[in-house]
C-alpha cells in the first residue's frame, strides 16, 4: 500500500470532465513531478487532494485512510501542506505571522490563556515563534520577518508560501508552480532548496511545474496529465521518450 493513493478518481463539473479515472500512488520521501499542458487538470488534482472539490467518483487515501468527505482544514491537519499557483499569502500580516498562522492547529492556548497572558501562552508563543523563524531561515528570508508579506518581492513570496506550508509539519507537500515568474537564478536557487527540504525532512513532495528543466532535474518520478487523464508516469528518461507525452506537447495530426 502506497503512502498517498488516488484511486480511479474522476471529477466532473456539470458534465465537464476535469479529471478522468486518475490513478496515482506516491511513496514516502520521494519527490514527484506532475506535468501536462495548460488546462490538463493539474491544479484540479491538488484541489481534490486538499479537499476543495470532492471527487465525483473514486477515492483519495493518505496513510490508508480516505480523505474524501473531509474538509480542507482537516486534511491540512492530517499533514497535507500546499502552495498556490496564484500566491495566496496573508498580505497584511508580517512574514513571521504568516508562518505562525500555520501552527494554529498544533498549538493549544485558550482564550483565557491569551487574555491573562498565562505562562502557557508565553511559552507556546515563543516556541511557535522560534519554529517559524527557523523555517524562515531555511528559506533564507529570516531577515524579512517583520515585513508585511504583501510587500515582499515575488520570488520571496513564493519562498514564504513554502515556509508557511512547512509550518503545518506536513507529511506531503504540494507545490503548485513554485518557480512561476522567477528568473533563472532564482529558479536554480529554489530548485536546490526544494530538493534540500525534501531530503532533510524526508517528506513526500508533489510539484506542478512548467519549467521542464526543473522537473527533469529534481523529480525522481513524473506523472503526465493530458486532458484530465494520466497518460504516462516514470522517471525523466521514460517520460522524455514516451510517444504520448511528445504528442501531447507537440501536437499530432
Amino acid at each position: 500500500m502506497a503512502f498517498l493513493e488516488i484511486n480511479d478518481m474522476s471529477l466532473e463539473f456539470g458534465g465537464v470532465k476535469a479529471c478522468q479515472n486518475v490513478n496515482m500512488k506516491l511513496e514516502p520521501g520521494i519527490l514527484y513531478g506532475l506535468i501536462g499542458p495548460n488546462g490538463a487538470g493539474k491544479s484540479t488534482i491538488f484541489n481534490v487532494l486538499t479537499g476543495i472539490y470532492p471527487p465525483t467518483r473514486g477515492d483519495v487515501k493518505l496513510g490508508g485512510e480516505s480523505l474524501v468527505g473531509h474538509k480542507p482544514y482537516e486534511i491540512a491537519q492530517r499533514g497535507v501542506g500546499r502552495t498556490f499557483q496564484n500566491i495566496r499569502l496573508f498580505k497584511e500580516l508580517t512574514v513571521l505571522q504568516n508562518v505562525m498562522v500555520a501552527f494554529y492547529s498544533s498549538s493549544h492556548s485558550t482564550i483565557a490563556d491569551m487574555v491573562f497572558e498565562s505562562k502557557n501562552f508565553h511559552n507556546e508563543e515563543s516556541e511557535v515563534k522560534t519554529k517559524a523563524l527557523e523555517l524562515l531561515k531555511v528559506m533564507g528570508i529570516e531577515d524579512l520577518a517583520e515585513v508585511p508579506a504583501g510587500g515582499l518581492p515575488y520570488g520571496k513570496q513564493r519562498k514564504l508560501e513554502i515556509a508557511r506550508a512547512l509550518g503545518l509539519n506536513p507529511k506531503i507537500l504540494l507545490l503548485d508552480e513554485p518557480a512561476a515568474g522567477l528568473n533563472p537564478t532564482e529558479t536554480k536557487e529554489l530548485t536546490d532548496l526544494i530538493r534540500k527540504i525534501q531530503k532533510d525532512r524526508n517528506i513526500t513532495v508533489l510539484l506542478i511545474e512548467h519549467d521542464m528543466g526543473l522537473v527533469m532535474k529534481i523529480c525522481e518520478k513524473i506523472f503526465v496529465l493530458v486532458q484530465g487523464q494520466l497518460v504516462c508516469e516514470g522517471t525523466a528518461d521514460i517520460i522524455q521518450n514516451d510517444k504520448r507525452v511528445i504528442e501531447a506537447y507537440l501536437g499530432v495530426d
Partner: protein
Amino acid sequence: MSKLNKTVLLFLIFAAVAVVLNFVLSGFSVTPGALFYEKPGRFTGLISPYYYSVMILLCINVILSVSLALLNGFTGLFTMGHAGFMAIGAYTSASVVYFLLPTAPFFIQLIAGALAAGAFSGLVGFFIGTSSLRLNGDYLGMVTLGFSEIIRIILLNIDAVGGARGFSDIPVYMNLGSVLLITVITIMVIKRIRDGRLGRAMLAIKENEMAANMMGINPLNIKVKAFVISSFMAGMAGSFFAHSEGYLSTQTFSFAKSFEVIAMNVVGGLGSLSGAIMGAGILTVLPEALRKVQDITGVDLRMVIYALTMVLIMILRPQGLMGNKEWKWLSSK
C-alpha cells in the same frame, strides 16, 4: 514575578484609578456608593452632569466599537446587527436586576446583570452565527440587519419589559469610574485576543479564507468564536447602558445604532483597534460638541454637520483616520 500576576497588578492599578476618579468626581465623598457605583449627587464644578453622562456614553460606545472591530476589522465579517446584541444585553440585564435582584447589593447586581447580558447575547450570537456564517460579504450584513430588527420588534411586543412605552425605573448603578474601568478591560481583552493564536487565525481568514483553510484552520469555527465574543461584549455594553440610563426604549436599538457603530470603525480605520476607539470618540463627542454651534446659529445644524463630516472623512481619507496603524500601547509588540 509571573505574567499572571502582572495582569492582576495592572487590573488593580486601573481599579484604583477608577476609585480615585469616582472619589474626586463625587466631590471627595468616601461612602462605598460614591466610590464604586453611585453617580455623583452633586457636581463640584470639575465636570457638568451633562458632560458626565456624555463620558459614560462614550465609554459604552467604545466597548461597542472595539467589539465590532473584532468581527468587522479583524475577522473581516461585515455585520449590521450590533444594535440587536446591545438590545438583548440591555433588556436581559435590566430584567434580571429589576425582577430578580431588585434589592441585592450593587456588585451582585452588576456582575449578575452583566454576565446574564453577555451570556444571553453571546448565545443568540452563537445561533445567529452558526446559521448565517455560510453567507459572505454584503449578504451577511443584510441577514444580521434582519435579525437585529426582529430582536427589536420582539422586544417591542413584550409587555413585561414595557413594550412601546419603554422599560423604566431600572436600578442605576454605573458611574464613570466603573464604566471606564470596564472599558479599559474590554480593550485589553480584545487586544490580547488579537495578538494570540486566535487573533492570528482571524486575521488570516480576513486576508485569505482559502489559504487559512489550507493551513489547518476551520474558518467557521473561528468566525463563530469571533461572533460569540463580539456579541458577548456588545451585550455587556447593553447592560452598562441600561444601568447608567435607568430607562430603555427599543428605538435606541434600531439599525441606525448598528450603522453608527460601523461608522465608528470605518471612520477610525477598519482593522485598527486604536481607530475603533478614536472613531467612537469622534462620533460620540462630535454631535455633543456641535450643540455649541447650534447656540450660535440658532438652527439645529448639528446632525447635518455630523453626517457631512462622516461623508467627508470617507472621501478624503478612505482608510480612516488611523489607517491600519495602532497607538503604541495597543500595537502588537
